[in-house]
């Protein structure tokens, strides 16, 4: 459903402090399937409803947080063009060979953006061994486990100079910006960016420390599944942050919590259908609390203060 060359965020690599415990969460609570292990011990996973080889890689490390995010683009030609345009934008590009550190993935390009995050782009990836049916298909092949998340959906990144990061996403990745939040001086506090009809593929919040991640978002089917996710958070003694509630921004119905290594996860349903010809929605920063937490009507401090 790409509207203009960048299809979606297709892969995220996260650092975890306790691989066994955290992997158990991703498999049995979130509901991902393990598809591969790398020679250096990283674990590759995907949702039951994704076609591509994998979408989440976990790496054991001595700190939690984000290694990199990767976006799938519509062709090798687009990948070459975006590599040139990324260099021209001012970000040096590194080539990552096919089937190297991410099994099943074709060649990727890698670069660091203004916010300190490592971005990657790729066009080619193997079809997963276990993928949704294609011929007279059923809705699933094996019953989804746990929260039964449908796809890796989006992420919220914290770092400096999000205005430049937003410009990179629009000018080079050909994405658009359905919603923004501005400070009284007119500068960006937050921006929601997409390459398709989802309300966001990624979002940024302005923050002095580079390279931070606020959360990774996974899609649920509907509001009932948000309730089931809340049940599973309680049953598994996970630490809930916020929700179940509704965002006015994106309109998503949502719950936030932390996985066992302290990376924040959002599982959500709904959200409006974005379109690049719609006018941009603009939030004043003193209304951001209500924009994020529509039922509470005010900011929840942990949302702005805690990142990994």
């Amino acid at each position, binding site marked *: 459903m790409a509207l203009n060359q960048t299809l979606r965020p297709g892969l995220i690599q996260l650092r975890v*402090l306790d691989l066994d415990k955290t992997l158990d969460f991703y498999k049995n609570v979130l509901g991902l399937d393990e598809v591969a292990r790398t020679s250096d011990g990283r674990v590759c996973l995907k949702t039951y409803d994704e076609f591509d080889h994998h979408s989440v890689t976990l790496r054991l490390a001595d*700190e939690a*947080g984000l290694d990199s995010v990767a976006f799938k683009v519509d062709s090798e030609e687009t990948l070459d063009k975006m590599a040139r345009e990324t260099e021209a934008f001012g970000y040096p590009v590194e080539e990552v060979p096919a089937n190297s550190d991410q099994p099943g993935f074709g060649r990727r390009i890698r670069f660091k953006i203004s916010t300190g995050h490592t971005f990657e782009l790729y066009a080619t990836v193997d079809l997963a061994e276990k993928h949704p049916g294609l011929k007279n298909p059923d809705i699933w092949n094996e019953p989804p486990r746990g929260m039964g998340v449908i796809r890796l959906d989006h992420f919220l990144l914290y770092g400096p100079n999000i205005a430049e990061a937003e410009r990179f996403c629009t000018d080079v990745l050909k994405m658009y910006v359905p919603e923004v939040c501005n400070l009284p001086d007119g500068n960006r506090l937050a921006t929601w960016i997409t390459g398709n009809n989802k309300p966001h593929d990624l979002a940024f919040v302005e923050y002095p420390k580079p390279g931070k991640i606020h959360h990774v978002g996974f899609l649920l089917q509907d509001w009932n599944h948000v309730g089931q996710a809340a049940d599973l958070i309680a049953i598994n003694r996970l*630490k809930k942050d916020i929700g179940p509630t509704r965002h006015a921004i994106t309109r998503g119905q949502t719950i936030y919590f*932390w996985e066992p290594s*302290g990376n924040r996860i959002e599982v959500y349903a709904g959200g409006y259908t974005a379109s690049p010809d719609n006018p941009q929605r603009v939030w004043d920063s003193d209304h951001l609390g209500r924009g994020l937490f529509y039922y509470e009507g005010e900011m929840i401090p942990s949302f702005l203060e805690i*990142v990994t």
Partner: protein
Amino acid sequence: METPACYRITLASGETFPYKAEDESVLAAMRRANAGPIKSGCFGGGCGICKMRVASGSYRSFKPMSRAHVSEQDRANGIVLLCCIRPTSDLTLAPADDT
């Protein structure tokens, strides 16, 4: 059946709270007692919001703390994430930056 150990944890302000359960973190006991200046976050050792210094007493860590928030030097100075430790004696806690 073994009786759970009960320790008293004292903050720099003089405020104290008990630690009764053997299977929870100092942070969880602190939250339950509604004590202390510390905010809580991930309870997973990752976000660093519950960083404090153990000024006196003994403890053990039962899960890894993110190196981004607690360096080896910090550990040597008693800096901890309260969500990752359980006491093995009475404890006195101080702000992490008060070293």
